[in-house]
């Protein structure tokens, strides 16, 4: 956003890396991710499975398994989050920072009443008594637009539909009035009509409460309308970051570009061939020092296989981690070269039918 220069920096993630040692090797789930978030802003993190978006969120929420090795800094409202985690600070997560999860069916405890699960947070963190917690809980249900909140308060999760459950989850997350809400694929498991309502709700709540939002999704379309800024992740790295309209209209990273092309859209003709992304999915275990998208990238050149391109560009406007960004002169040249060769530097066959990028 052009005006985020005057907003208060709320969250700052610096060079965050998360590794999981396993028998088969070290899984590098997140590799040097950095981003900042202003108070009241919303950031979309978009990526396919395995891109590290959820791990990033869980790192922020201190939800990683003990085996995880984390490095880098996370600062939230001036406090070092990782130090808070080490010191087992009690009333921070759930109070300042809250999170909602993908599947409303599973993110509510099936054996506890919805109301109990909401008021539990209030009682635990804010030491409300049973009665007050109930009142506030019902208010929260009201806030997230649940009809008949009193009745719902005493119902079990299985008695509610998916959409309602996700609203309950949101109410739960909002209970202590957090200043940052992390939504991890909040609408993946619900139908489109419900998804729309939920996204609207999150948007509304964010604006009403001056809350920041990190929206994690695999669906570029979801992030587009709801976020001030979008970060695209691939293999544990942010490969491109920028404003939604820029990203959609003028994707620079070949991955973003390819992703957009591979999505079927309403405005493309029927039976139009989709541009699938070829090549193997990224290697997460003991990855080699190279651009992780290179093996699948139609623009890949020899130097893409030599070193990892760093995220660079204008912070707040557009940052790309690529040596040969798509839709640029450099990119077009690289593509032309590869097509002439019939394959990329990483050995990916260039399909004759493949559309040019740019």
């Amino acid at each position, binding site marked *: 956003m052009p005006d985020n220069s005057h907003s208060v920096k709320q969250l700052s993630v610096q060079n965050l890396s998360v590794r999981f040692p396993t028998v088969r090797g070290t899984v590098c789930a997140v590799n040097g991710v950095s981003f900042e978030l202003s108070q009241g802003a919303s950031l979309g993190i978009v990526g*396919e*499975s395995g891109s590290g978006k959820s791990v990033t969120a869980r790192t922020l929420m201190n939800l990683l398994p003990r085996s995880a090795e984390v490095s880098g800094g996370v600062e939230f409202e001036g406090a070092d989050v990782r130090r808070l985690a080490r010191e087992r600070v009690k009333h921070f997560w759930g109070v300042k920072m809250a999170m909602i999860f993908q599947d409303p069916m599973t993110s509510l405890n099936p054996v506890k009443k919805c109301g109990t699960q909401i008021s539990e947070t209030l009682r635990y963190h804010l030491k409300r008594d049973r009665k007050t917690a109930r009142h506030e809980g019902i208010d929260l249900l009201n806030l997230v637009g649940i009809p008949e909140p009193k009745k719902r308060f005493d119902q079990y999760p299985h008695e509610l*539909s998916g*959409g*309602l459950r996700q609203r309950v989850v949101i109410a739960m997350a909002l209970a202590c009035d957090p200043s940052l809400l992390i939504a991890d694929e909040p609408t993946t498991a619900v*139908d*489109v*009509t419900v*998804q*729309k309502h939920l*996204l609207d709700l999150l948007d509304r709540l964010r604006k009403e409460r001056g809350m920041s939002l990190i929206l994690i999704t*695999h*669906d*570029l*379309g*979801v992030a*587009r*309308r709801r976020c001030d800024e979008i970060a695209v992740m691939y293999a544990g790295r942010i490969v491109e970051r920028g404003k939604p309209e820029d990203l959609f209209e003028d994707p620079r990273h070949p991955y973003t570009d*390819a*992703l957009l092309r*591979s*999505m*079927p*859209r*309403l*405005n*493309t003709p*029927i*039976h*139009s*061939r*989709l*541009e*699938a*992304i*070829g090549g193997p*999915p990224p290697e997460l275990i003991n990855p080699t020092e190279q651009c992780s998208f290179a093996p699948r990238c139609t623009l890949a050149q020899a130097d893409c296989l030599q070193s990892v391109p760093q995220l660079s560009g204008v912070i707040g406007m557009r940052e790309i981690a690529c040596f040969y960004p798509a839709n640029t002169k450099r990119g077009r040249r690289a593509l032309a070269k590869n097509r002439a060769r019939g394959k990329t530097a990483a050995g990916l066959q260039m399909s004759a039918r493949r559309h040019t990028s740019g």
Partner: protein
Amino acid sequence: MAGSGDGSLRSEGDMLLTVRHLSVEFPVGRKRLLYALSGVSFDVAEGETLGIVGESGCGKSTLAKSIIRLNQIKSGSIEYQGRNLATLRGDELRRVRPDLQMIFQDPISSLNPRRKIRNVIAEGLAIWGDRQGVWARNHVEELMVSVGIDPKLGDRRAHQFSGGQCQRIGIARALLLDPKVLICDEPVSALDVSVQAQVLNLLEDMKIRYGLTLLFISHDLCVVRNIADRIMVMYLGKVCEIGDAKAIFEHPKHPYTRALLAAIPEPAPTVEVAEGDISGELPSPIDPPQGCRFNTRCPRATEICFIEEPLITQLGDQDHYLACHNPVIS
């Protein structure tokens, strides 16, 4: 909406598959019934791709399973090549089966985790050992190559493949017996975007290569839009709107279709977002609403919608059929 009747059936006689008044009900304890499908009628011409869309719980998966007789059918008929699949039993049914194959939603659980994928793909031959002709044309390795699985990996098991590859294996298995109709039940919804495109492309390729007729079920309108010739929109076990894909997407008449289109994160330019704002929850299929089943959420519902169930009717002479008392007139 959510209408009854067989008004949606096209008059041409060369339909490959004609479903009439198909009803499926499941007992859900205490003598209550879940009305999964209620009087669904439609037809599919040879070589056509029918996209079936609707929210979860609308009966689209039940429909798929009913056509290939994985469900008990309450009433109605499924005509395929002059035979009524709904009444076939035992060996007769078994003999028809190779003609109608299916691809499942969860690519991994649709493959037996303990069997080598070569055997999984070749299962059809093992069952129909006598089909020499099939063997001659579609031997397993060739098929593996054509779906993009390296035959050298044939000795591996499902868990050693990614979701996309598993779906390819599933497609190969389905194609081995040279089916006429391929029913795809949400074949790409469990896949990542980049892989989804590969599988969709593959399906298109295979359709052309083997002359398939596709029933493509999805909740993702964009995907359906890309692959389907015709679209059928379902709601709570009934058909709302059916017709040529272009017509449906560009001139949706049914309020529900419009709502679906409006709810897409990147909504279709043909509908206004506000127009599709339907509220409320999907009613229970155990106790569906009287009259038009969409009446509880429909922004255009009038009195008649609560009393009378709309019949499906053709819009003019176009390939566009609709069940609604108050359609949107553009």
